[in-house]
């Protein structure tokens, strides 16, 4: 079982060595990747997923437990210890959800466990999204939020890999803080590419991207933890207002008073 991943820094878009020359990520840790659009966040996540060996555009190298990974991890997707959830929120697959998950569970887990794994996956997904997913609906008919919830559940329950990478989860209609809390129950390393302050503050560290390079690694400190708690309350209050508006209710005007 994998214990840690290491990224050895390569070069920025302009060819300079990356300021962060080495980054270690241990199972059980949550890393937030932050930075403006175009700063190289997705590229970093792709490097991890591909176990970059110095030949990608960034020149980065990825080590597993301190050494280059065996080629099997790269060549055989179902042997990879990394599950990646990309920014895509639509499926092209024309299978019903149940059959899709069953096929995936069969190769990732075992034919005998597949049925149970599928049920667990659907239950997990339905905790993340407000619109329940039916096993008989076609993958292509899922909404953005349902698709994203299903992908997170698939990565966590079906793949059950020690490392999960999520590229900008916030764009779809799922509850991020709840997702993070649910994910924390599983002992994994999580890498979140995120613009969401609450999610970023809940992480153990923030990796700052700029110009295609890893420019700083900020470990969460006391100030971050204090802010995370307040951001959580603000998120919660805002979510209540959002729900009230969606439900067609009139508002009192004082709902966000505590933060005014």
């Amino acid at each position: 079982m994998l214990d840690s991943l290491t990224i050895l820094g390569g070069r920025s878009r302009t060819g300079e060595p990356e300021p962060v020359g080495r980054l270690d990520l241990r199972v059980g840790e949550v890393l937030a990747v932050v930075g403006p659009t175009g700063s190289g966040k997705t590229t970093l996540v792709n490097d991890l997923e591909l176990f970059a060996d110095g030949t990608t555009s960034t020149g980065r190298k990825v080590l597993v437990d301190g050494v280059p990974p065996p080629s099997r991890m790269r060549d055989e997707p179902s042997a990879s210890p990394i599950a990646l959830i990309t920014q895509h929120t639509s499926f092209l697959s024309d299978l019903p959800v149940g059959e899709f998950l069953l096929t995936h569970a069969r190769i990732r887990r075992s034919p005998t466990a597949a049925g149970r794994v599928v049920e667990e996956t659907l239950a997990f997904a339905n905790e993340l999204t407000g619109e329940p997913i039916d096993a008989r609906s076609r993958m292509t008919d899922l909404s953005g939020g349902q698709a994203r919830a299903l992908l997170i559940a698939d990565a966590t329950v079906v793949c059950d890999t020690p490392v999960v990478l999520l590229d900008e989860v916030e764009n779809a209609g799922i509850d991020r803080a709840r997702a993070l809390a649910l994910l924390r129950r599983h002992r994994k390393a999580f890498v979140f590419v995120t613009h969401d302050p609450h999610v970023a503050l809940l992480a153990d560290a923030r990796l700052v991207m700029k110009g295609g390079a890893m420019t700083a690694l900020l470990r969460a400190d006391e100030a971050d933890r204090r802010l995370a708690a307040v951001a959580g309350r603000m998120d919660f209050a805002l979510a209540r207002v959002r729900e009230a508006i969606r439900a067609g209710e009139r508002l009192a005007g004082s709902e966000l008073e505590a933060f005014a």
Partner: protein
Amino acid sequence: MRLAVVAGPATTGKTAVLRQVVRRLLARGVAPAFLKIDVQYADEDEALAAEFGIPTRKVYSGELCPDHCSVMVLGDAVRWAAGAGAEVLLVETAGLCLRCSPYVDGALGIVVLEATSGMNLPRKVGPMLSLADVAVVTKIDRVSQAEREVFRARIEDAAPSVLVREVNALHGIGIDPLLGTLLGGPQLVLGEDLEPRGLRLRGAPPVGTCTICVGKRDVGWRSHFGVVRPLESATFYRGE
């Protein structure tokens, strides 16, 4: 001299994959040549010659089926490529007919399928997949990792002995292992005259007495002989 025959439905990424392969062969100092077999139009030969300066050519199958055409010309093509100093001949075929396949024993057979094509495709392409050595799955950048893994499982269900390689042919991701398979594959045996010895079409081709192929265009099974079938019958009837 090595030979790879690459087949697959139109626009799956055969040329994009071969472009990446050619780039890497040249970087390793291995000389490739390229042949395109198509029915009536192709410009891959010109594009690859312009881009890499390698020997390329094309042949139009016209009235012949492209796989039939490939059996006719492959011997000549190997002789041409060997004469041009190539160490690897890459053949891109149209792959139109799902009943047979263009692969030959003694050479690497590669089918190119796209991850975006729907989960039933592996069941539909028949010998083009099942007789291949390697199935290259392109456009993995367009689907989720979960879909990619399930697509692979569908291929392995349809063709358990075929080696699957996932690639993003636009960015050259996943191509390197393919190169290992190609360069580790069989060598052709060439005679004095550079003509390959012992190349044989793989698998059993379909029955060759098709009245439509020989030009009879009337619709309805009563107008035909050989292998015919009416709508209300699940089995093919031979010998009319």
